[in-house]
């Protein structure tokens, strides 16, 4: 059966992509890199980290808006920019917010490094959870556990089990553990407070093809 396609433009390239796909999937299919954090294949898109934002114009006109590529579906005639100055500025700031709140989570360092961030202007905190919600979606959608969820609002938001007690539906499958970016041992590169080593991005031949945007860190001190 032939699939319906729509024509879109990503970063100036005209592409025919499958209807119903998200911008992120369409871009990845054609090798256009969009960094992601809370997105994972086979889990429903969440749109929480906003790292995958792109600039969209519905008809190619002058009026553009920003939305997350993981949730936005392609439409005929859409013109998308994945690395316009507005997007780069936004992503850089998001990476800075992220790494300052959880500097000891590897993925935040990776994303910060990838954005070329070398200095953080906010006071560093030491959160271990970045509230990406991967564990919750894994548990709910793939393992049918329904043992995890968000509780609290705003700054008090956290991942928890019902009434903070492990429910019977949790079979200790450790699917949550498996997807959690916070359990990966972070880069131990030398840092002054507020400084990021960023040594990994100074390597000239940093490839631009890593589909997950989590290209590893090459610091010697990195135990991984």
């Amino acid at each position, binding site marked *: 059966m032939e699939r319906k396609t729509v024509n879109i433009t990503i970063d100036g390239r005209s592409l025919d992509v499958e209807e119903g796909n998200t911008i992120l999937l369409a871009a990845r299919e054609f090798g256009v890199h969009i960094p992601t954090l809370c997105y994972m294949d086979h889990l429903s898109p969440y749109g929480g980290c906003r790292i995958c934002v792109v600039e969209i114009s519905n008809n190619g006109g002058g009026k553009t808006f920003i939305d997350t590529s993981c949730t936005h579906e392609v439409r005929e005639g859409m013109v998308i920019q994945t690395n316009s100055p507005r997007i780069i500025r*936004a992503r850089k700031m998001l990476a800075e917010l992220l790494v300052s709140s959880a500097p000891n989570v590897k993925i935040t360092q990776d994303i910060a490094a990838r954005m070329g961030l070398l200095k953080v202007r906010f006071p560093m905190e030491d959160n271990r959870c970045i509230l990406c919600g991967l564990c919750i979606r894994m548990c709910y959608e793939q393992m049918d556990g329904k043992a995890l969820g*968000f509780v609290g609002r705003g700054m008090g938001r956290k991942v928890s089990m019902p009434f903070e007690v492990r429910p019977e539906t949790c079979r200790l499958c450790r699917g949550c553990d498996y997807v959690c970016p916070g359990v990966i041992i972070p880069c131990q590169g030398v840092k002054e407070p507020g400084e990021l080593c960023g040594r990994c991005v100074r390597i000239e031949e940093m490839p631009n093809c890593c589909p997950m945007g989590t290209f590893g860190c090459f610091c010697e001190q990195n135990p991984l």
Partner: protein
Amino acid sequence: MRKIKSVSDLEKWREAILEKEKGHEFIISVCGGTGCQAYGCQKVKAAFQKELKREGMKEKVALKITGCPGFCERGPLVTIYPQNFFYQRVKAEDVPLIISETIQHGRKVEHLLFEDPMDHHKITSSQEIPFYRTQMRLLLSHNDLVDPTRTEDYLAIGGYGSLAKVLFQMRPIEVIEEIKASGLRGRGGAGYPTAKKWESCRKAPGETKYVICNCDEGDPGAFMDRSLLEGNPHSILEGMLIGAYAIGANEGFIYVRQEYPLAHKNAGIAIKQARKAGLLGKNILGSGFDFDVEMAKGGGAFVCGESTALIASIEGKVGEPRSKQTHTVEQGLWGKPTNLNNVETWANVPLIIRKGSKWFSSIGTDKSKGTKIFSLVGKVKNTGLVEVPMGITLKEIIFNIGGGQQDGKRIKAVQTGGPSGGCIPASLFDVPVDFDSLTQVGSIMGSGGMIVMDEGTCMVDVAKYFVHFLQEESCGKCLPCREGLKRMGEILDRITEGKGDEESLSLLEELAEVVADTSLCGLGKTAPNPVLSALRYFRPEFEAHILQKRCPAAVCTPLIQYSISETDCTGCGACAKVCPTQAIKGEKKQSHLILVEICSKCGSCKDICKSNAVMVQ
């Protein structure tokens, strides 16, 4: 309560009610709104009941507990009809006097009348009071005529007439065309054309459709929607009925936040009565159209005013927004096409149908039609609910209706649109109040909060207040809103503590723009508005905090110092008595001194000093 099965039934009932009302020589309407309840209107009501019973006048005089007429500052409010005497700040002790003077002899009770603050003459009727004179009260005017718990009162002012007209004389498409011709735009804040929303919802595929009334008003200092739903719930129901008929929906919800118990109660009573009367349910007025409404109670989260979060909340999920590429008119409540409008939008609908789109579109400006209710609060003489035609200038609202500055301090700005809006400086007070003009100057119409600020308000402090409010109310789902607002709050905290540096402002600006650009829902997208508009118009104030470590409005405690003027101090010692930290020393009849190290900067000394000798710098 009778069951109405046709339009003629409705008209007969209306005639019977009007006939019965003719029996009353007087109507005493006591405001039962939340503001007046706080002032003790229940006692006034009880006193009236007791007094009327004692005098044996229960047949002659009708006592009504009505909704809010808006002039909350002067409550409890009592209006006597047909003379139209407007009494303010009425106490239970005044009731016998009102009965003997006004009801029995037709005379005014002078000390309860409103006194013009300019020339001190007494004003008898509400229409002549400056606060009401400039207003155009299309929606609020019925609030003091209708007892919200009596369907009969709403019928007496022509209620449900528009519904009958729509059901029997208009096709759904014609209703939408009529609303389109009226130019009505959503009153919830964004100003989206109502008819366009209805049309898309009507066209959306699907059998089951819903309409929702959004009464999750959460802006600090705003109470327009609450007063409408508390005071005239049947008008909202009628609006929803008409909308549902136009869209093709058979079920509706009124979403009220938990903090509005009276609105919840009155709307609940109205729904029950309407069901009993056959105005809700199956085969309404014999037209074959079915519609019913349920109440939904919100937990009081600000973010639940956002349409997708509100829908999630009704569904029983956590009130969090979702990505909005597919609009709620296509996929809303339980995935079905859903039309969500604000209380005030629904209240406008019966009015447009009754009086015609031509009449409605003659009010207001080119692109914003009709009236808008604002809750005018802050540093003005008269505060309360004001309803004005679109296009009126801010100056007229603040100075003619609000009565201008309170106590010798010049008004410097007005904050419109609540936490999503911005601060407009006094130099722009000639801006007409409509959706587009307010957006142009960096604020928004919003749901209609209007907070007036004078020289004693520090704009950095205001920006800080709103950012902290939103930080508390953010659902925490998306990174820019959760972390970005927290960081903005931290930067503003540092500035008000005198620890800001020159980089602070550029970082704040950059952060604000990214938060606005990348946030998931309307809360985050508009959250930086108070900061950005304050930076746009009041940058010198921010710079004074950072460069000179000085708060020009003398609000930010870490940056101010209290001292006593030697020449003005009479040595009365009053300040030393109230000082909670014993920081004031001095001999009787000698000039006093504040010990800066101990001073907690509470300001009690300044408040109590009669000779104005305490200075703040």
